[in-house]
């Protein structure tokens, strides 16, 4: 395959970042915007070309018989730790990578376009585009990584671009602390990933994905450790769980999810790009990338399933009670990613030929589209009413028809209503879960129902409910074309994406899988659940009434806890501020100043005290000296005399 396109896909965004970052301040907003959009547009076209080439050219590099192959386009040495461990920088093309290229460049392009309208007149417009380019570069680098270390490198870069973009409004303290929180929480997770990579690389003398996942390789690792276990898990299990920890951080799985809702402090296009469609699915991508290894250790997969299922339910419950529309979407994102995680966790070759994997990737794709749509829609709303809370909205359907209809499509897609894209992917995921165990199937169906409920709660509260009196002073209207166009296109994609024959393109082992919808066992029940949930939401929120308050009063404790996100932030606050900062750090600093430094100073003080004491003898009084001298001389002479006589 020609090297030019893959290299350009990475080179254009980073070049854009450098140009806009270094010279942006000297450019006009318009020029910077056009440069950014053009750059991303070109990248998108290139990525489409590459993906199209990969899937449909029939090139023998990419497909042999019916099996899709992994192809390393280029791979150059970047750093050589030791003769065994070499970090390369390369471009690995395989089905999930090609799909991610499409997703990232598409969303990124639309976000670039959308931002031109959304960020208009903002100070730091050029900086915003620079950071967007940096993010796109890092994310593309992450998905094309040929080895886990390259992935880790871009993983970190993605984290930093996320930090920079969340903290884009750096003058507001809340944005600053949100960005800090996001970075530190994900860094903590990355620590787990790093340790996992350390463990893995010690037993497997390579970072390369193809070699890592080659048949027989994991068994070799297990053999090399001599069956050693630690707390009941083999070395490989631990390595995989630790690596998954990194994914938990980026994908906001349960104990490490707290940064994502706060990350909504960033500009809305950023939320759409990073915190909904692309970066947060990196964890899913990571597990998918190393899936053959995970298959070796079902314990690790069970762990993923468990974390994912808990997170999905938790986030869905919390989303039902939030006021800030972006936070509702954030929790919805958490919940949906958890869906993908569960789906990956239950994927087994023996259950529907590893359907879970395909379903997870499918949902990743469709979710990226409709969640970006929802976020961009939310951005349009915020742009119109200048507030994030639904209390400032209500009855907007008449004022903003485009936003209304696209948002509705997004809601239908995420709720899983036929024939919108969400239905298809969710259906596949649920069938994989039912195939694995009925318990998780029912559980996740319930979560899917909750999803439909909270999304329509949001929809009704924004567009129906009661018309907000403020509109008389400030009449909201639809966004400019740069913002509406992406909405319309993404809505269109969300309508039709379900009909893509995804199973033919992406499966865990490259062999095609023919999607068939299990209407009776899975689809009808889940569809019914969704419809019931939507009807419930309609009853409660279509017109202003007191039902929601009554509903909240049924379980006031639960409602309050969910409203406070089950106090996770408070717990973290307690641990970080009260324990780590006030107890550990302060006491160490005190120890250093007073004990360690005190000891060193004490040496000096003792020396000084001794000198002062001795100094008294050197009184400076000649008379005293004479006296001592004389007495000494007398004593000496006396001794001498006594000896002689």
């Amino acid at each position, binding site marked *: 395959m020609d090297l030019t396109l893959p290299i350009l896909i990475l080179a254009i965004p980073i070049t854009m970042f450098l140009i806009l970052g270094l010279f942006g301040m000297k450019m006009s907003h318009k020029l910077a915007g056009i440069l950014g959009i053009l750059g991303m547009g070109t990248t998108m076209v290139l990525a489409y070309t590459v993906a199209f080439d990969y899937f449909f050219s029939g090139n023998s590099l990419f497909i042999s018989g019916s099996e899709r192959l992994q192809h390393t386009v280029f791979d150059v040495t970047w750093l050589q730790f030791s003769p065994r461990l070499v970090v390369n920088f390369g471009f690995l093309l395989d089905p999930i990578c090609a799909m991610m290229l499409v997703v990232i460049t598409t969303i990124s392009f639309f976000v670039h376009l959308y931002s031109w309208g959304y960020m208009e007149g903002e100070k730091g417009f050029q900086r915003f585009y620079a950071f967007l380019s940096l993010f796109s570069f890092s994310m593309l680098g992450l998905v094309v990584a040929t080895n886990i270390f390259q992935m880790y490198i871009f993983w970190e870069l993605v984290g930093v671009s996320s930090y920079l973009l969340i903290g884009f409004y750096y003058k507001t303290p809340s944005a600053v602390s949100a960005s800090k929180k996001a970075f530190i929480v994900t860094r903590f997770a990355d620590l787990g990933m790093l340790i996992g990579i350390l463990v893995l690389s010690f037993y497997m003398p390579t970072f390369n994905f193809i070699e890592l996942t080659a048949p027989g390789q994991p068994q070799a690792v297990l053999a090399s450790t001599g069956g050693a276990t630690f707390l009941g898990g083999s070395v490989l299990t631990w390595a995989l769980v630790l690596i998954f920890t990194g994914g938990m951080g980026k994908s906001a799985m349960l104990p490490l999810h707290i940064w994502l809702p706060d990350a909504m402090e960033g500009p809305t296009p950023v939320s759409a790009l990073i915190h909904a469609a692309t970066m947060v699915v990196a964890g899913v991508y990571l597990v998918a990338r190393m899936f053959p290894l995970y298959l070796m250790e079902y314990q690790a997969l069970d762990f993923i399933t468990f974390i994912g299922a808990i997170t999905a339910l938790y986030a869905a419950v919390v989303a039902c009670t939030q006021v800030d529309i972006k936070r509702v979407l954030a929790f919805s994102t958490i919940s949906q990613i958890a869906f993908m995680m569960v789906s990956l966790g239950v994927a087994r070759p023996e259950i529907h030929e590893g359907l879970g994997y395909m379903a997870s990737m499918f949902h990743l794709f469709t979710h990226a589209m409709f969640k970006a749509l929802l976020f961009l829609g939310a951005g349009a709303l915020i742009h119109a009413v200048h507030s994030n809370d639904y209390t400032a909205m209500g009855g907007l359907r008449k004022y903003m028809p485009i936003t209304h209809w696209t948002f509705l499509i997004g809601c239908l897609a995420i709720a899983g209503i036929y024939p919108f894209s969400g239905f298809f992917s969710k259906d596949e995921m649920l069938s994989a879960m039912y195939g694995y165990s009925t318990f998780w199937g029912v559980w996740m169906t319930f979560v899917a129902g909750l999803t439909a409920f909270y999304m329509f709660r949001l929809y009704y509260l924004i567009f129906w409910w009661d018309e907000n009196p403020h509109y008389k002073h400030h009449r909201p209207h639809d966004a400019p074309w740069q913002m509406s166009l992406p909405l319309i296109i993404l809505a269109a994609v969300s309508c039709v994406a379900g009909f893509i024959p995804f199973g033919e393109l992406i499966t865990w082992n490259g062999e095609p899988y023919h999607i068939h919808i299990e209407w009776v066992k899975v689809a009808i029940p889940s569809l019914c659940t969704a419809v019931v949930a939507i009807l419930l939401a309609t009853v409660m929120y279509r017109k202003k009434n007191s039902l929601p308050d009554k509903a909240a009063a049924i379980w006031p404790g639960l409602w309050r806890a969910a409203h406070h996100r089950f106090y996770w932030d408070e717990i973290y606050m307690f641990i970080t501020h009260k324990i780590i900062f006030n107890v550990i750090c302060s006491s160490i600093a005190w120890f250093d100043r007073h004990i360690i430094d005190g000891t060193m100073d004490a040496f000096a003080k003792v020396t000084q005290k001794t000198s002062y004491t001795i100094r008294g003898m050197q009184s400076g009084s000649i008379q005293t000296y004479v*006296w001592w001298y004389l*007495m000494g001389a*007398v004593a000496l*002479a006396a001794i001498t*005399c006594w000896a002689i*006589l």
Partner: protein
Amino acid sequence: MESIGNIILYFVVAVIIAVFSAMAVTTRKILRAATYLLFVLLGTAVVYFQLGYEFLGAVQIAVYAGGILVLFVFSILLTQHPADPASVLANHRKFVGGLAAVCAVALLGVAVCKFPLIDGMSLTEAVSIGDLNMKQIGHFLLSSEKFGYLLPFEAISVLLLACIIGGIAIARNK
């Protein structure tokens, strides 16, 4: 056997030296201390005469009693109201000083008494052996041969010069 005059002279001088030394260091009026010192120095000069060193006695009177003591008196007059008594000494100070003095006396006394050569000859014998006159002294002082003291003489001259200059430099009013 000594002449009786010599003996009487000795005792008178010895008593003068002992008493005035003691008074010089115990009196509280500094000008009196200087005066008592004068008597001690004169007594010493008499001893020199008695021992047959007339030149030395003359130098003692001229330099010490005449020169140094005048310096003392002037400096006392410059720095002190002559009638002012010094403050009374603290008892422990007296004790410490006395102890030192007594120790010194005791030790030196023992050493002197036990010294085997101490009762060698009498004064008359001694004076009769070493007779010397001014001419000889002058000769020795400016001779560079054996028993010549030219070098110390010159050294002392330079030293005195240095002292004069130093004294002027220090005491000079800026």
